[in-house]
């Protein structure tokens, strides 16, 4: 047990103990999550620059449209040079690209369950998802998205994870049950993304931050890139 924890810490990761979280569409049932390790911070432009320099096939001019859409690293100065703030979260990366980055570091993307579970924590408690003050803060942070904040500057939550809410949206391994249903055989939930009917079946109709994340994920496919969508890795 000690060795994995030490290695995780050295790799900028933190240990998240097993627990459970309340799924948005889960009839109030809590979903169990096994212990895992999660990057303390979102992957930065600088880190991603190192990655593409070592993996030329992921440079902007080499990536096929089946791996990322035209927005891939579109704000970079050149295919090998990120420019701008190197400590800002990298954005404009597709799911394929994010996965490849994590795999090159011996890691993987977190699942939706792992991400949501870790993101339910405030600085003080492991599950603040029903705390109105926490929720209001998250909503406020989402409203200020895109203001060019740096990674690692926000307060760490109780697990030591920073910036889950106040930087960018983040990729997850199984981000969209509808889009990935053909691979995983799970049922689609595309009706949840629109209209007032989205509230039907929701565990907590007041959890607006969760609805927003759900809507963002619903719109994505594996090639999508957004100027406010980055990622971090898990293990």
């Amino acid at each position, binding site marked *: 047990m000690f060795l994995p924890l030490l290695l995780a810490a050295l790799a900028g990761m933190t240990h998240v103990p097993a627990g459970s979280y309340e799924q948005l569409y889960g009839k109030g049932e809590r979903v169990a999550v096994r212990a895992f390790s999660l990057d303390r911070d979102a992957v930065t432009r600088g880190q991603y620059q190192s990655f593409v320099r070592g993996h030329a096939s992921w440079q902007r001019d080499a990536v096929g449209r089946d791996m990322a859409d035209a*927005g891939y690293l579109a704000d970079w100065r050149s295919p090998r040079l990120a420019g701008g703030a190197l400590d800002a979260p990298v954005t404009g990366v597709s799911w394929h690209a994010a996965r490849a980055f994590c795999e090159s570091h011996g890691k993987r993307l977190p699942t939706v369950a792992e991400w949501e579970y870790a993101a339910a924590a405030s600085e003080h408690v492991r599950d603040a998802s029903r705390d109105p003050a926490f929720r209001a803060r998250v909503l406020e942070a989402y*409203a200020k998205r895109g203001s060019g904040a740096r990674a690692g500057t926000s307060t760490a939550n109780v697990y030591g994870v920073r910036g889950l809410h106040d930087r960018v949206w983040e990729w997850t391994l199984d981000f969209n049950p509808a889009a990935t249903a053909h691979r995983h055989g799970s049922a689609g939930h595309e*009706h949840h993304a*629109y*209209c*007032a009917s989205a509230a039907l079946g929701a565990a907590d109709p007041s959890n607006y931050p969760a*609805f*927003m994340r759900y809507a963002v994920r619903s719109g994505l496919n594996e090639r999508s890139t957004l*100027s406010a969508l980055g990622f971090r890795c898990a293990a």
Partner: protein
Amino acid sequence: MTHTASLPSQSVVARGALSALLATAALLATFSLAGCGAPAVAADIGERASVPVRTPSDEIVGQEVAVVTRAPNVPAPITRTHATKVIVNLDVIEKTMRLADSVEYTMWTFGGSVPGSFIRVREGDLVELHLRNAANSTMPHNIDLHAVTGPGGGAKSSLTLPGGESVFTFTAMNPGLFVYHCATSPVPMHMANGMYGMILVEPKAGLPKVDREFYVMQSEFYTKGKFGEHGLQSLDMDKGVDERPTYVVFNGSVGAIAGENALQAKVGERVRFFFGDAGPNLTSSFHLIGEVFDNVYGEGGSAVTQHNVQTTLVPSGGAVMVELGLEQPGDLILVDHSIFRAFNKGALGVLKVTGAANAKVFAVKKSIGAVGE
């Protein structure tokens, strides 16, 4: 002035023809339904005859790009006498805008303004709607047009990521004035942030000719700060859930159609308001202080349902068309007659009417104001 006279005779003829067509369509539908459920009796057929089951059948001739306008402007009446393919381009833009003096709010918009672009098409047109979401948007967005017969009013087919575009088509089958809005989850948030506008499906026979048309939409804002509190404000979700708006405004901000931006018209003119209520929560008691609505198309439907109306009720997510002739100069005040909203929350607008006064319409005989001046 009489107002029924302003209805052109051609429209009466066309309405007659339309009714006959619809009755035929309904009759056909009745026959096709006869196979299931209870057998139709004579009285039943009579009832059903007034409910059309529509099949778009107009020949689509040509194609055009819709000219859309920002409130209070309205696109020109449609003079075409045939159906066409209309391409509507709507750009979703998130941007910080004025909500009141020294008060800003990051609004989510259709077309860069609140309310969103006014769309005008003709009954029977095939509309191809292009929804583009700006690359720097933080959220995916979509559109639900109440004029659309189809899944989610288009919302199901139009979830659009930042930097993306969605396209869907629909036939504008039902004439009338309709609200559109973003329906991305969580819907109340997208609507509370300004994502609504209106689409007019002009009846085939057109609307009666008037001299001026105005686009006014009422909506609420729920801010963390109190009414008038300076600075950049953001959504207070609790106030939204409790239906306690901080602001109730016409055309997206306090004073949007007052002062220098007051609506303008002249004595002797006939004007039409396309008035919508975006909510997200409140029903509007739309009233024009100092005038009377001569014609009201109740709930934004295609027929004049009432004359000589003081205050018309406009549901959240609904609309109304009102017409009136202007007989006297002065400032006519648009209000939601739930009057605290007008006095304390911003639901005020002005229609400035200039021209010669008619003492038979109104004359001051004795007043404190007259003495003081």
